[in-house]
């Protein structure tokens, strides 16, 4: 049975290989069939594996299947081993399910694109890499998947490569995440040198034994791994690439830049939680970065004009919540929010993409409006997604996941009121910018006419995701209402539970508070953007608004801090000794070449003269011998 597990990442990989070799020669229906079908098969295998896993829990809490020995040299052994435990089960479930729905959506969304086969090939490679990342048994294999998803992200952001801006966005995403990846690989070296293995389980056991609480090695290792996570998950200070990554097609934004790849950092931290628990300072940094990022991105999302950029900042902000949860030690709460976020954010991107598609590539939300009646299905699904994102109390999944994080930010022993306050402010911002989007796009006066209705293949995934966005919350109800712990019960087998501070305020108090905050945000959005648009306009003209709009001017800051000095150094370094030496070689060669090329003048008799002189030379030499 274990071999079925290996099939889950292999099927999409086969799809990639087939489509990249045969893609140009097979009909479009066939491309769609293979591209989406193989992911569909993987998505069907996942619940089977999940059932096997849940019904008869394997010894040690994990199913492992080794395909072959990948590297074995010196002390380093790395095998292609897939390991399924509760954490990776949640991840492969989300990746294959959301991945399949998005592939289905893309069949119609990309129908008229000339790069149809290329698109599905890249998407399949992405799903495969992501599955390798979360199923990897050692950090080297994880790193393979990690770089694989980075590559696919680059390829898909620049999918419409004829537009130079898209290529720029792709390079920006690649290079900025590369900064984090470099930190991460140095972290891997550090772990290997000191613990002599890269197998995650052994690594965690040995780290716990050899390294003491707060030891400097554990701190460095955790810090370097955190660097990788920050780059991939677009957290402060490496968050600037994600808004620009929206240059890619909408399904790409939904799959890679909302649901799965950007949460790889969350996965990495949860996977190496032992290290982070050994380094409390780094764990506090995780929580602080999460809290800061969620605020920063929330403010930026409030001022964007482009529908997809609002969602991009919102993604950064929601991943901030996940980091906050991980940082306060509420591991399963972070993973739960990841799952719920994957559903509603993928839904929002798909619905947003549908809006953009039927409005002929109109991205500006201020030019939309009144689409509620014209695109009813898109409206209702988008509304459900927004409600979940804004954590509308009781009925949405987003409420249960976010409420849990806020509760732990206050009551966990690693939490503190500041983190909680940041989270609560973020919740207010979230519901404000989310419903700003809803009111501007779907309510108000009609400004634009959709060209057609999205078809069946686009609507079905949206409806399914909408259902998940509402229902996924009910598998994990807080202690104050129902106390269902299906999700955290599953994850508690591998992730430690939260240490609470006793004698605190009751949980209900926090739930009511966050419900009030969420509803206030929605009401304020209604007031500012629908009732009195003048209020919103006057804010948009301020310099503060522009500052938020530019993403807190991080791009300009980095330009001054890094790009300009580097360009300046390169400028002055252009004429150093080595360069002079090298260019002198080139110049001398050119000079000789131009001298010799004089002899090649096209005059036949000149050449004959050359022969004759040559013969005389040879004869003279021969005679002297």
């Amino acid at each position, binding site marked *: 049975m274990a071999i079925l597990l290996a099939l889950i990442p292999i099927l999409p990989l086969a799809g990639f290989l087939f489509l990249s070799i045969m893609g140009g020669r097979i009909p479009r229906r066939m491309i769609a069939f293979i591209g989406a079908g193989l992911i569909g098969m993987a998505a069907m295998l996942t619940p089977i594996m999940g059932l096997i896993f849940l019904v008869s829990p394997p010894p040690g809490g994990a199913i492992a299947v080794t395909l072959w020995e990948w590297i074995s040299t010196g002390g380093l052994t790395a095998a292609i081993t897939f390991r399924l435990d509760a954490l990776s089960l949640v991840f492969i479930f989300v990746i294959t399910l959301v991945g399949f729905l998005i592939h289905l959506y893309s069949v119609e969304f990309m129908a008229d694109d000339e790069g149809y086969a290329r698109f599905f090939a890249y998407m399949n490679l992405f799903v495969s890499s992501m599955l390798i990342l979360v199923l990897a048994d050692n950090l080297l294999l994880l790193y393979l998947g990690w770089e694989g998803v980075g590559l696919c992200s680059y390829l898909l952001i620049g999918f419409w490569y004829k537009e130079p801006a898209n290529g720029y966005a792709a390079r920006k995403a690649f290079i900025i995440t590369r900064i984090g990846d470099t930190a991460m690989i140095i972290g891997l070296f550090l772990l290997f040198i000191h613990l002599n293995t890269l197998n995650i389980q052994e690594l965690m056991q040995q780290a716990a034994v050899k390294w003491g609480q707060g030891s400097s090695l554990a701190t460095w290792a955790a810090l370097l791994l955190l660097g990788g996570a920050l780059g991939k998950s677009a957290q402060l200070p490496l968050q600037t690439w994600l808004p620009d990554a929206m240059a890619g097609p909408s399904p790409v934004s939904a799959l890679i830049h909302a649901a799965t790849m950007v949460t790889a950092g969350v996965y990495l931290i949860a996977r190496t939680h032992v290290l982070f628990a050994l380094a409390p300072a780094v764990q506090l940094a995780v929580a602080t970065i999460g809290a800061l990022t969620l605020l920063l991105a929330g403010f930026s999302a409030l001022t964007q004009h482009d529908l997809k950029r609002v969602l991009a900042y919102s993604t950064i902000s929601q991943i901030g919540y996940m980091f906050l949860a991980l940082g306060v030690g509420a591991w399963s709460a972070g993973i739960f929010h990841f799952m719920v976020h994957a559903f509603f954010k993928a839904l929002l991107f798909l619905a947003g993409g549908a809006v953009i598609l039927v409005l002929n590539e109109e991205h500006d939300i201020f030019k939309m409006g009144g689409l509620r009646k014209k695109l009813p299905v898109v409206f209702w699904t988008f509304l459900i997604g927004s409600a979940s994102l804004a954590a509308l109390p009781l009925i949405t999944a987003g409420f249960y996941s976010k409420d849990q994080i806020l509760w732990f930010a206050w009551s966990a022993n690693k939490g503190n009121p500041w983190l909680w306050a940041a989270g609560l402010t973020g919740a207010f911002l979230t519901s404000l910018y989310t419903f700003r989007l809803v009111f501007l796009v779907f309510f108000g006066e009609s400004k634009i006419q959709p060209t057609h209705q999205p078809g069946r293949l686009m609507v079905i995934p949206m409806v399914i995701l909408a259902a998940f966005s509402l229902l996924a919350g009910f598998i994990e109800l807080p202690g104050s209402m129902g106390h269902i712990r299906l999700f955290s019960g599953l994850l508690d087998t591998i992730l430690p539970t939260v240490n609470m501070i006793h004698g605190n305020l009751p949980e209900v108090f926090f739930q009511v508070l966050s419900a009030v905050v969420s509803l206030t945000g929605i009401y304020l959005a209604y007031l500012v953007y629908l009732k009195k648009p003048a209020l919103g306009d006057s804010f948009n003209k301020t310099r503060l608004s522009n500052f938020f709009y530019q993403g807190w001017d991080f791009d300009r800051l980095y330009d001054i801090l890094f790009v300009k000095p580097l360009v300046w150094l390169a400028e002055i370094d252009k004429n150093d000794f080595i360069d002079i030496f090298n260019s002198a070689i080139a110049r001398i060669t050119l000079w000789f070449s*131009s001298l010799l*090329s*004089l002899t*090649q*003048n*096209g*005059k*036949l*008799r000149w050449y*004959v*003269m050359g022969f*004759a002189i040559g013969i005389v030379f040879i004869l003279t030499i021969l005679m002297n011998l």
Partner: protein
Amino acid sequence: MVTIPVEIQILFAGLLFLIGLIGLLVRRNVIFMLMSIEVMFNAAGMVFIIAGAHWAQVDGQVMFIFMLAVTAAEVSVGLAIILQMFHHYKTLDVDELNKLKEIN
């Protein structure tokens, strides 16, 4: 019968070759250049005959007959090229044909 010493014979062939070479170098008319090449060919053939006679071997004459065949083929190709050249450029001056060179 007076036998001419072999050195004189070789010298004669060398002279013939030199005449051909000088003709090739100084003439600009491509037909004359072809003719000069023929002269040089015959000088080479002459050496074969001389060598064959000197060592009383038939191989020298056999080689000369081979050479005649090769020369005939060469001349027919050469004349065809000259015809084409005249057809295209309306000239037989070989210095006019200097397109194939390094541009600088």
